[in-house]
């Protein structure tokens, strides 16, 4: 708009530097603000892990103490529930990753008749509110007279993690050059050798991403577990119960530790990935 500046000639005085700087960096400032909004609760959890609350609830700052950090398992049943959650997450990850990778390969590599039906079946669990899946699966277990507990939780977790693994692995396999496998075959590799030495290594980052996502989703799931756990208590269910009975400081210690471990894992993973890319 070339004529713009002359028409509003009365206001043509150039904006001062602060205004110009603000205008140029407004997106960055807003973005950093959002980042702050995302990180704020983690910081609060961290700070309040050093609190010594007066009552049963750790919502108000009283005074500094490292008691919870030196005795992280000092709360009855908490570390047990944590162990159970880890165990379930590991098995759910193994189950969902194996089943999901197989489906992803079938979808990415073969054309068959039921393809669009299978795609719909994979997509639906991700597009359904968790509470609907949770209630319907619990209805099935109830009617079949199946005892709620470890196995029902595991079955449910594999079910809702599966789609995420399929999506992650499929994306990776689809973007892979099929000529690499043809080249391997031309060099007289057997199908098994081709799969193990060419296909699998290329698909590995997708499989790893799917597995990592499954682990996080399973470990953190509350809604589906709440419906299908019976009297079994996983870590999120322990936290939920403590929101009513009283929240021990140790919960914040676990939350902080999880955050730090997660940051470390993601950081190491990304740097390793970048190094490998630079080398090749």
């Amino acid at each position, binding site marked *: *708009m070339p004529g713009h500046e002359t028409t509003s000639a009365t206001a043509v005085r150039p904006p001062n530097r602060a205004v110009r700087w603000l205008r140029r960096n407004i*997106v960055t400032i*807003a*973005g950093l603000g*959002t*980042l702050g*909004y*995302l990180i*704020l*609760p*983690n910081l*609060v*959890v961290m700070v309040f892990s050093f609190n010594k609350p007066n009552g049963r609830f750790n*919502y108000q700052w009283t005074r500094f103490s490292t008691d919870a950090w030196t005795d992280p398992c000092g709360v009855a049943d908490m570390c047990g529930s944590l162990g159970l959650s880890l165990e379930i997450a590991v098995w759910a990850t193994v189950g969902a990753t194996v*089943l999901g990778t*197989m489906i992803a*390969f*079938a979808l990415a*590599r*073969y*054309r068959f*008749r039921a*393809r*669009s039906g*299978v795609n719909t*079946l994979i*997509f*639906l669990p991700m597009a*359904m*509110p*968790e*509470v*609907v899946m949770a*209630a*319907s*699966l*619990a*209805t*099935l277990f109830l009617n079949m007279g199946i005892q709620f507990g470890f196995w029902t939780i595991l*079955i*449910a977790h*594999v*079910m809702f993690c*599966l789609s995420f693994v*399929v999506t992650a692995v499929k994306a990776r396999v689809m973007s892979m050059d099929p000529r690499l*496998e043809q080249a391997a075959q031309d060099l007289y590799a057997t199908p098994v050798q081709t799969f193990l030495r060419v296909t699998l290594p290329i698909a590995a980052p997708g499989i790893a991403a799917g597995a990592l996502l499954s682990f996080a989703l399973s*470990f953190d799931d*509350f*809604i589906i577990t709440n*419906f299908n756990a019976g009297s079994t208590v996983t870590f*999120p269910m322990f*936290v939920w119960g403590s929101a009513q009975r009283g929240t021990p400081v140790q919960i*914040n210690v676990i*939350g902080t530790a999880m*955050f730090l471990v*997660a*940051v470390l894992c*993601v*950081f190491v993973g*990304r740097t390793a990935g970048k190094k490998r890319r630079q080398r090749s």
Partner: protein
Amino acid sequence: MTTTQAPAPPERPAADAPEVRRTPARKRLVPYWLLLPGILWLLVFFAAPLVYQASTSLQTGSLEEGFKVTWHLATYWDALAEYWPQFVRSVAYAAVATVLCLALGYPLAYLIAFKAGRWRNLVMILVIAPFFTSFLIRTLAWKTILADGGPVVGALNSFHVLDVTSALGITEGHRVLATPLAVVCGLTYNFLPFMVLPLYTSLERIDPRLHEAAGDLYARPATTFRRVTFPLSLPGVVAGTLLTFIPAAGDYINAELLGSTDQKMIGNVIQSQFLRVLDYPTAAALSFILMAAILAMVTLYIRKSGTEDLV
């Protein structure tokens, strides 16, 4: 959303498929063997329960005398008549949270895609890491942040913001906890990463030379954004809004931890009908209505937004 695959002619193997040669029957069965266990799992533990739940919603009876299918469709009508405020509230809260997520998430995604430079990895980690920390612990942290005597509420009060919001019905009195504002704040916070990641993915694909070209054609930054960047990021916007809206509409954690009985959403009702009242037919009918409503809205939205190649 399953329209992404080009529909291959059913009988003939497609030309670009890896197995071009005529394969023996044993080999042609390979994809089916690969699919079998996983698909069976989904059919038995995802699809069958939904069918089962449909039949449950048509049952009458009680826990003592057992439930029987009596085609009692009135359960649906009664459930809607009694709980329509919670339905409306769920959709409203989820919609507001989705819009807020878009408004907050877009600058962050833009920052990561175009401006973060060598900080990109760190910012990315800070967006993803909360995924791996407990959802519930972080939601409880909002109780501390929004506490009545806390700095946030203090600041809002001293600027008389809460007087305005209370007049609008978003808050009550001089507090934030146990009001709609707190629940929407929690929902926005919890589902923000689901908005940022798809936005980032579609922004990252934009060729920066398009920005330069727009600048060369005398487009001002705002015009470049409106005519170039935003339209190209639409797939991310659609995916992000769906990924935030759907789980937010069914969520009951935020309403339970940050709200009061006046902010109950439909998830809270389903949860208490199923786990406390043990009225399974009503719980089943409610979750069916929720599912149908969401599927209808999503279909309409995708049709309207016109980005069919989404997933």
